């Protein structure tokens, strides 16, 4: 896997500058300055553990090229810098590889296959290690997601292996590396509470209130407090906690990221725009009252909706909370062990992707990777996985927009799609087809959409006046698919629980 990535080393993107800046900040300045430094526009907006990680890396970086560690060297780049940063990602991926190995051990190969290529563990390993989204985000675009997802998958594996404390510790550490994982914290919290703090169930599977274990709760609490103290402690002592929080949760940014993640708000915005145009045409609206800056300008600012009610961060929080409630209730009332936990995790991740504030398309990976674990075990999950992963990966296409990268992203996407479809189809050969005709047609339509966006549209005269149209089309089309997949997964989880409860009764 690493060999494949070595060939991508020569590319460059803004994420390089972001991390170079953070290396410089953590190397040169004392802790008290880390969250106040503003020389560069890419300020430190990850929790303290990540800052310590960058600090550790910077001590290795000085042997490659000391000039990258000078804060004032904005947009500094050299071959040694790029080489160092690429290798650091490849190196930290070792944790991801280890986590995948642990996950594969949790997946039981009920179907005994003669051929190693058809074993669920092998398929899972390939689906995780060669995940297209992770590859292009980490190794072409440059981020450290592999290592962070490794931590998450490792904590999931530990929970599946009933090593609850280790799982909890790993998740707490992960939260302090990148706070986006707070989206899935409810799943962890409820599962640990239900299965670890209450150590036994009644005969019919419901909660045995008497089996509450004070010891377990204390241990969990201790772990969480310890990790938080280690991470945020120094900043609390310095009285910088509000500044850190404001850096970690920048609500000044708009509802939608520059490229419009395919979530509910993309559909909401598109509806708003459509109604605006309709209203203008039918003279229901006054043209002078509409703000000039449109949502689709592609800039990260605060915008206003014209026809539909505006959306505040609080509104998105409430929507997210309401959407994860059913899955959390399911997990509480009828936990089905690790599988139930995984289902809840995926639903939490997907629901927060659907309704979150300023969600980046990369966040779809938070749902796709755990879903891989479920997909090799049940045909229904495999079908939803194929749908979600193809759409999710397609929505990542706008991240790579230069002509040399076009063949690479198409080839890699085709590779992953062909492999996932053929391997999962062969795994569940004896059951119904994984996708129904509607879903198949929807996925096939992605091809003409891609051809239109990448090849035909740039050659038309509309490109100058409406440069955002390809992005708009991609986001809206993918949002439809993601919403459908989300609903389908929810329905399948809820009906599964209801049928189990009926069987128990």
């Amino acid at each position: 896997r690493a060999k494949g990535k070595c060939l991508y080393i020569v590319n460059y993107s803004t994420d390089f500058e972001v991390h170079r800046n953070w290396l410089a900040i953590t190397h040169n300045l004392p802790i008290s300055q880390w969250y106040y430094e503003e020389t560069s526009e890419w300020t430190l907006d990850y929790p303290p553990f990540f800052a310590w990680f960058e600090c550790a890396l910077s001590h290795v970086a000085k042997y490659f090229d000391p000039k990258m560690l000078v804060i004032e060297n904005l947009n500094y780049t050299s071959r040694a810098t790029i080489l160092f940063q690429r290798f650091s990602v490849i190196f930290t991926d070792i944790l991801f590889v280890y986590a995948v190995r642990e996950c594969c051990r949790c997946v039981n190969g009920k179907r005994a296959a003669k051929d190693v290529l058809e074993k669920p563990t092998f398929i899972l390993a390939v689906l995780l290690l060669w995940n297209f989204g992770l590859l292009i985000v980490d190794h072409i675009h440059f981020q450290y997601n592999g290592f962070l997802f490794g931590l998450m998958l490792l904590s999931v594996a530990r929970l599946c292996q009933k090593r609850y404390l280790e799982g909890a510790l790993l998740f707490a550490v992960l939260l302090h590396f990148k706070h986006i994982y707070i989206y899935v914290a409810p799943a962890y919290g409820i599962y640990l509470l239900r299965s670890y703090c209450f150590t036994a169930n009644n005969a019919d599977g419901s909660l045995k209130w008497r089996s509450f274990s004070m010891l377990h709760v204390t241990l969990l609490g201790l772990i969480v407090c310890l990790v938080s103290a280690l991470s945020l402690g120094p900043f609390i002592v310095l009285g910088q906690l509000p500044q850190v929080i404001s850096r970690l949760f920048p609500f000044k940014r708009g509802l939608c990221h520059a490229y419009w993640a395919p979530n509910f708000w993309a559909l909401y915005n598109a509806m708003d725009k459509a109604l605006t145009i309709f209203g203008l045409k039918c003279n229901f609206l006054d043209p002078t009252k509409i703000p000039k800056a449109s949502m689709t300008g592609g800039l990260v600012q605060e915008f206003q909706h014209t026809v539909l009610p505006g959306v505040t961060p609080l509104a998105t929080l409430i929507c997210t909370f309401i959407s994860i409630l059913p899955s959390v209730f399911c997990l509480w009332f009828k936990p089905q062990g690790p599988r139930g936990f995984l289902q809840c995790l995926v639903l939490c991740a997907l629901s927060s992707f659907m309704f979150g504030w300023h969600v980046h398309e990369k966040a779809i990976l938070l749902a796709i990777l755990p879903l891989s674990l479920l997909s090799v075990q049940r045909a229904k999950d495999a079908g939803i996985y194929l749908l979600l992963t193809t759409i999710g990966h397609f929505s990542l296409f706008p991240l790579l927009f230069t002509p040399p990268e076009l063949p690479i992203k198409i080839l890699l996407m085709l590779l992953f799609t062909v492999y996932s479809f053929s391997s999962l189809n062969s795994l569940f050969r004896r059951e119904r087809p994984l996708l129904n005709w509607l879903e198949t047609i929807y996925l096939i339509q992605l091809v003409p959409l891609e051809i239109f966006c990448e090849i035909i549209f740039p050659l038309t005269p509309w490109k100058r006046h409406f440069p955002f149209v390809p992005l708009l089309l991609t986001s809206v089309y993918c949002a439809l698919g993601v919403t459908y997949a989300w609903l389908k997964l929810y329905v399948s989880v809820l009906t599964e629980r209801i049928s189990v409860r009926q069987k128990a009764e």
Partner: protein
Amino acid sequence: MEKWSLMTITVLLALTVRWTVSLGSYSGAGKPPMYGDYEAQRHWQEVTYNLPIRQWYFNTSDNNLLYWGLDYPPLTAYHSFVCAYIAKLINPDWIALHTSRGYESQPHKLFMRTTVFVADLLVYIPAVIVYCFSLKETSTKKKVSSALCILLYPGLILIDHGHFQYNSVSLGLALWGVLYLSYDWDLLGSAAFCLALNYKQMELYHSLPFFCYLLGKCFKKGLKGKGLVLLTKIAGTVVVSFAVCWLPFCTDMEQIMQVLRRLFPIDRGLFEDKVANIWCSLSVLIKIKNIISPQTQLKLSFALTFLSLLPTCIKLTVQPSLRGFKFALVSCALSFFLFSFQVHEKSILLVSIPVCLIINEIPFMATWFLLVSTFSMLPLLLKDGLLLAYAVTTLAFLSVCAASFSIFEKTSAEDLQLKPFSLSLKGYVSWFKSFPKIVRCLFLLSVTLMGVLSLMSAAVHPPQRLPDLFPLSVSVISCLHFLLFLVYFNVVILWDSKNSRSQRKIS
């Protein structure tokens, strides 16, 4: 998993590796005044598009033959013309006469890389896939593994998509020729090979095996009846193919002579630069160029070449078999490479592709040979700045071959097709018991040596007195390897008899 999905994944992987290597540097990047092969190809597009056909191979005021004059047969020129036509639609500056010399830009690089990619995709890759599917007595898994190993061969990828050339077209056409012959479609096979020959004259290395195999087939059918008919049909096909390709040049004898003079530059000397060839290696000890006159050099090299390939060719004519044909392609091309006149290091590809064809019969030796062939081109790749691509693709190739064919377990005399040879030697030598172990040790030693030398060439500066130390060492070591391989392949061919093959079928 199904055959087609596995093959699709293999092809997609191969394409991804090719495009990723394309993103790297090319030959002569940013090195005026002459640049490199990339500029040569661009210049040929310029010449073929802007000048009339009668001037393509001549030295005129518009066409300076000293600046990358055309020195490949007409099909290359036609291909350049088609590319130039497309280039004109995108940006005429790329092929403007005289003013586009040394033109380098990102979009242009993208265009040139795409032409190589498309040529590869249309000619070479389908040939490999059809060939692997047509392999007899192999499981689906072995077929797909063979395809994967062949498509991941680093040498061709690095030269075509890195250094920048169009070898995949001529090699692909020759491969189609071999394919057609394996289905007994002799006329199509001859036509395909003639096209390959008219694309790059180096395919002459493969011409003798084709000729001997077809001649042997005709003899077998009986020279009085069907054989003669076949012979005339093949001859007719060859003449027609050549006529079609050379049609625009057939108007004037002078045209044909000039083209031939450009194709075979006899006055350029025995060898140029450092190449893993006998003459270059011998020149370390004795300066051949100074001792013998050019005429004698020519005669000596021809004599040695033909002497070394004579046994194989005679055997092939007498006993034409497909297996013998494929092995003969390897050993004849290798003889030509080692002993012939004016050989370039890229010509090793003409030996490597036939070796790829027999990878499922002798996986261990084939992998070893392919690694050495890539290593022998290291000085060229270093000059082009392709070190990283070289390291990654070679390691990937080695791991894929080791995993698919489990080569380290198959090193016995039987696996190396040396059983008949060992049987006849049994009386004389008794060390054949530890033969697998010896072979494995030699392989590891060789790979370590190549790895160390690669690292040193890349990282260490040579001493002042011997500036060519590393390229020369690479050439000499590769040459020694190739000599041993030549002996090995000849032994396998000469000792391979129908009896031994039927014995294997029974057991």
